[in-house]
């Protein structure tokens, strides 16, 4: 929980990691990719305040103690949601697997939600693994990478019939939240890996599922916005937006926030620190203090207040994941309903 000026903010970090990208985990023969990947992540950290930068050695493999301190003790986070990233082509034990995350989850009950993943190209085996992970770890969400290459396949889309089988399985297994990575990718795709039209289709056909588009489609924010405004069950995952822009480029940050607030709305935006890329502490403190800079170019964006920030920093995600929020952190009557789909207005006219 974060407290400022008498207001109490319940913090859900809805997108974070616990990875091992140290040389001991590099696949022989793929070292340059394993090294290049983590150096690329490390460059993102340079967009944070200088006092929060880590040396590359720590960044490659931070400890359990680092994570617990940075996220919970210093970072104000009440509940953190692990999003796995496998990358087993480069990292022997995977970069950040469900199992690795779950080991921490079991050690610290109540602190973590352990999401899992699937890939429709894994067929029956993959469905079996998904069932196993849900039973074993109680996953209520998944993280999907549609742009990922696999055995000569150049990625997949949520529109594929095979993906629909998995989405049906999610509904059946009680998975509610589908986090889709629509952000920076690496594979030599000739089609545009950031295309969000597949989310549009799946969100229409699976209205009981929530689709959280992580990194808001960056670098295609406009495509995401134009799609999200049409779908009541599509949400904007703010990881990278706050971490990558709020400190480094505050005026651009304000504009991106203004656009998201206009097209998507404060009920459907969720904070994610993307730890270990960025520590949550400075992001939470800065976001609570944040407002638009002075200037006419910001004057027609939707305004934000304390209730808006409470929703984005935790209450929206708490609603999506049925996390119990202490009474002192809830909204007062008349301050709206977090994660409300009904309040999302389709922008057809302005």
């Amino acid at each position, binding site marked *: 929980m974060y407290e400022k000026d008498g207001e109490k903010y319940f913090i859900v970090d809805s997108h974070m990691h616990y990875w091992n990208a140290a040389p001991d985990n590099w696949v022989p023969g793929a070292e340059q990719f394993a090294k290049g990947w983590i150096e690329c992540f490390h460059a993102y950290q340079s967009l944070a305040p200088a006092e929060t930068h880590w040396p590359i050695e720590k960044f490659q493999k931070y400890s359990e103690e680092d994570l617990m301190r940075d996220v919970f003790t210093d970072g104000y986070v009440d509940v953190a949601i692990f999003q796995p990233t496998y990358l087993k082509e480069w990292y022997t034990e995977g970069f950040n697997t469900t199992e690795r995350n779950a080991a921490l989850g079991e050690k610290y009950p109540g602190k973590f939600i352990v999401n899992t993943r699937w890939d429709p190209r894994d067929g029956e085996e993959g469905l079996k693994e998904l069932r196993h992970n849900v039973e074993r770890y109680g996953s209520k969400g998944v993280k999907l990478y549609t742009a990922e290459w696999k055995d000569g396949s150049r990625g997949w889309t949520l529109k594929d019939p095979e993906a629909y089988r998995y989405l049906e399985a999610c509904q059946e297994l009680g998975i509610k939240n589908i986090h889709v990575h629509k952000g920076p990718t690496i594979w030599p795709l000739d089609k545009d890996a950031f295309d969000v039209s597949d989310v549009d289709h799946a969100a229409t056909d699976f209205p009981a599922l929530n689709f959280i588009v992580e990194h808001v489609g960056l670098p295609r924010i*406009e495509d995401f916005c134009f799609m999200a405004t049409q779908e009541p069950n599509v949400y904007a995952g703010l990881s990278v937006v706050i971490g990558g822009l709020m400190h480094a480029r505050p005026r651009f940050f304000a504009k991106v926030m203004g656009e998201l607030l206009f097209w998507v709305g404060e009920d459907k935006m969720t904070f994610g620190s993307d730890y270990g890329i960025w520590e949550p502490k400075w992001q939470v403190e800065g976001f609570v203090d944040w407002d638009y800079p002075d200037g006419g170019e910001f004057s027609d964006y939707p305004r934000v207040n304390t209730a808006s920030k409470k929703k984005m920093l935790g209450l929206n995600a708490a609603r999506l994941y049925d996390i119990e929020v202490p009474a002192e952190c809830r909204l007062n009557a008349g301050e709206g309903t977090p994660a409300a789909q009904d309040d999302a207005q389709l922008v057809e006219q302005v």
Partner: protein
Amino acid sequence: MTVDSTLRRDGRAAADDLVGALAGPAAPERSRVLAALETVRDPELDEPITSLGFVASCTVSGGGDVSVRLRLPTYFCAPNFAFLMVADAYDAVSAVPGVARADIVLEDHFASDAINGGVAARAGFVDAFAGEAESDLDGLRVDFLRKAVMAGTHLVCRPLVADGMTPETLAGLSLGDVPPSPEVDRLRRRRIDLGLPAGDDAALLIDAATGDSVGAAAIPLHLRRARTTHVNIDANTSICRGMFAHRYVGAGSGGVADSVPADAD
């Protein structure tokens, strides 16, 4: 997607313009080569690779052999865009009169070998990534030119709207009615790149895909979308610049970024 046959690469066009300015087959001056490189844009950011700092070095031998080294913000920058920039740089430099041989090398990238080899062999993206890509990149280029047209529309129209111009008035304007500015020139160039009408009598507000003019009722939403497109490009550029600065500390020294005017396009 079918690509309009009028789609062209700026580099070649600009280099063609230089033909008359040079006499004889002597090796080109380095400044000519840099001017040609300045016409090559990062399609995603719609900015010249020179002002972004992506040109690490550029040398011209007495015999007219040009060697250019390019570098990008990360090891994993999208290879399709990287390929376009290397190929465009090759075309732009090769078209400068007096260039005997152009050697364009992308450094520090996970797909450097495939891209450099493909461009040097004049192969397309599909051949460069044999088995890994199914279509060449003209469709991608068109998508991003359309985004550039939308972003440019915002820059041109924002001051007009701020001055109180209504959608009804905007709907009746043609490009020639707008006071001249670098933003208008740039918008025209992007529309020409796409084969869209760009003359004085062409409508100011058009659909970037079809070229049809936008009616008054649809203008507020059209401008709203144009603005979002512009904000996205700005945000994306700022992240790329930040990553680039982290990767190449003191970039600019050693590169040629400082030797050409920033944002010359």
